[in-house]
């Protein structure tokens, strides 16, 4: 038996987009004369290659529509395997609402290729894990959504699959059930089983995966060490998020040409640790020489709330006039922000606040890591005393 559990080579999946949505006589004729490979084709996956070693876990990350779920369904549905593949692509996907939990469990087992005897042996463990007691003999349409998902998960893990495919399971169920799932998945790893996991919870996926595959628009953008790929994804995501939010305007006598973020040792980064130094080198270019000016900055959180803002005037720094091009440097010695993503805005305007030369809102995103525990976005040093 080789030590490779899954080998994916040059996998692609193309959807043909139909203009009208439905299949009409006209669209059928058009499809027939229409050559493949045109702009009406959407590649949900293109040239995906990777291998997963037996006993290891591969995490799949990427934005919505990146092709993660498509990849898992391709693996679940199209590929002939020798072992049992259990997929949690959709918990309880095969459940029929009119059948009881018991009937559905046996049916789900049969779909995954287990015999009735094999299922009978596992049945008690499934009911136990799902923790639904006497409801097992009720039609599943009377189940709460939590019970439904628990039973689906229980079936998928208790059928003892060789490969487990998990799509966003950790997003459902209450906290105690999630802990149970994570525990069960850890046991899986110990039993040398192979797992493929999709999750948007980067912390969890980084913790449970041996390798991570980062997909965007059907293409592999990163593959390898979890920490590294998650970092890469976060940077990518932040750039996308700021691209969506950013807005700029002004009279453009002075133009802001860019901002370089770095940490205390001067290494360029957009990921910062709480309480560490953040430096920004802000470039400008003067198109028409101007008089006294002010540079300003603002930090907003993901919800768009302004966390902090200041400018050179408040900092009592006077800039009598600007010409040519150059840089101003901003330093925040101790970044007292909670964990999350923040957006920087910069502006340059006349000292009398009347002419706005150039303003870039939410143009730069940074990530903040923090193990500091407090409520809110910004840490305020505080002390307690019993008096």
């Amino acid at each position, binding site marked *: 038996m080789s030590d490779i559990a899954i080998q994916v080579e040059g996998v692609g999946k193309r959807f043909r987009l139909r203009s009208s949505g439905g299949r009409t006589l006209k669209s059928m004729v058009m499809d027939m004369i229409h050559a493949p490979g045109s702009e009406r084709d959407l590649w949900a996956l293109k040239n995906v290659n990777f291998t997963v070693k037996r006993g290891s876990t591969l995490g799949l990350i990427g934005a919505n529509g990146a092709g993660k779920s498509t990849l898992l369904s391709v693996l679940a*549905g199209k590929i002939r395997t020798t072992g049992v593949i259990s997929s949690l692509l959709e918990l309880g996907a095969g459940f*029929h609402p*009119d059948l009881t939990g018991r009937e559905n469990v046996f049916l789900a087992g049969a779909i995954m290729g287990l015999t009735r005897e094999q299922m009978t042996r596992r049945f008690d463990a499934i009911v136990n894990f799902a923790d639904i007691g006497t409801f097992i003999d009720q039609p599943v349409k009377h189940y709460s959504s939590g019970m439904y998902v628990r039973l689906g998960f229980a079936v998928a893990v208790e059928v003892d699959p060789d490969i487990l495919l998990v799509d966003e399971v950790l997003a459902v169920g209450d906290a105690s059930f999630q802990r149970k799932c994570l525990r069960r998945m850890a046991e899986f790893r110990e039993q040398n089983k192979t797992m493929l996991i999709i999750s948007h919870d980067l912390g969890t996926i980084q913790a449970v995966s041996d390798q991570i595959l980062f997909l965007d628009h059907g293409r592999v953008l990163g593959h390898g060490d979890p920490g590294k790929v998650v970092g890469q994804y976060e940077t990518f995501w932040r750039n996308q998020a700021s691209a969506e939010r950013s807005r700029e305007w002004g009279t453009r006598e002075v133009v802001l040409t860019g901002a370089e973020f770095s940490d205390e040792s001067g290494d360029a980064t957009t990921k910062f640790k709480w309480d560490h130094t953040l430096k920004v080198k802000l470039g400008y270019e003067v198109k028409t020489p101007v008089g006294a000016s002010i540079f300003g900055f603002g930090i907003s959180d993901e919800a768009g709330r302004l966390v902090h803002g200041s400018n050179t005037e408040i900092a009592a720094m006077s800039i009598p006039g600007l010409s040519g091009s150059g840089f101003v440097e901003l330093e925040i010695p101790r970044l007292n922000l909670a964990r999350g993503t923040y957006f920087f805005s910069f502006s340059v305007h006349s000292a009398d606040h009347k002419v706005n030369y150039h303003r870039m809102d939410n143009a730069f995103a940074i990530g903040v890591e923090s193990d500091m525990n407090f409520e809110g976005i910004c840490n305020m040093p505080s002390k307690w005393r019993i008096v």
Partner: protein
Amino acid sequence: MIGLVKDIFARRDLLSMLVVRNVKIRYKESALGFLWTLLGPVFLIAIYAVFMKIIMKFPMPMPVLVSGIFVWQYLAMCLGDSSFAIIGNANLVKKACFPRVLLPLSIVLANFVNFILSLLVMIVYLLWDGPHFGGIAWLPLAMVIHLALCTGISLALSALNVFFRDVQHLTGIFTMAWFFLTPVVYDISMISSITDKHPILGQMYFLNPMAGILALYRAALLGNPLPDLSLIALSVGMTAVVFVAGIMIFQKLQPGFSDEL
């Protein structure tokens, strides 16, 4: 084809569970449950009996009508259900790996189970009615051909309806037309005055597989005389064509199922 049979055999556990599921959910939550398998045809029989025998004075023996409706009912059920065999299980088709052919096949077999039960009831009625069963030896052949016909049609309809939802709307009309082209509410002997004069019309008539199948059932259950065996052979041949064509259509279309759903 051999590969297909192997696939089905390998997953026979799943097939039997799907059959049980289909039998169970058909009448789930209905107070009369399985009785509906009988009540449906019984009401149909009552309607035709009143309308044709009493109002239109159509000289038709009851056993002919009863056997016609019960036998027809199996095909009609398959025609009605099979369009939804794949599209009604979109979740399974998209998310799990198993031979798709099990879905329409399980519907055909579940309806076959219902048919056998109603056949038993019909046999009880015929025993009460009087001496019948002259050609009972024909019964297994009739049932095998009947099953093959339903399988072929169901496979084709289930696969075609994935791509052309028009199919589910067309089947109703198609079923109605087929019903009257088939000697269900009349006996083949009633059109013999025409077919005797023009044998070619008789041959064309038996290109309808159900014509031969019903003739076999009525020979088996009622002891009616069997038409010329060459005519029966035409029906059997057409059944084979439908069966093979159904499998071919299904196999050709099934790779596209999960993308289309």
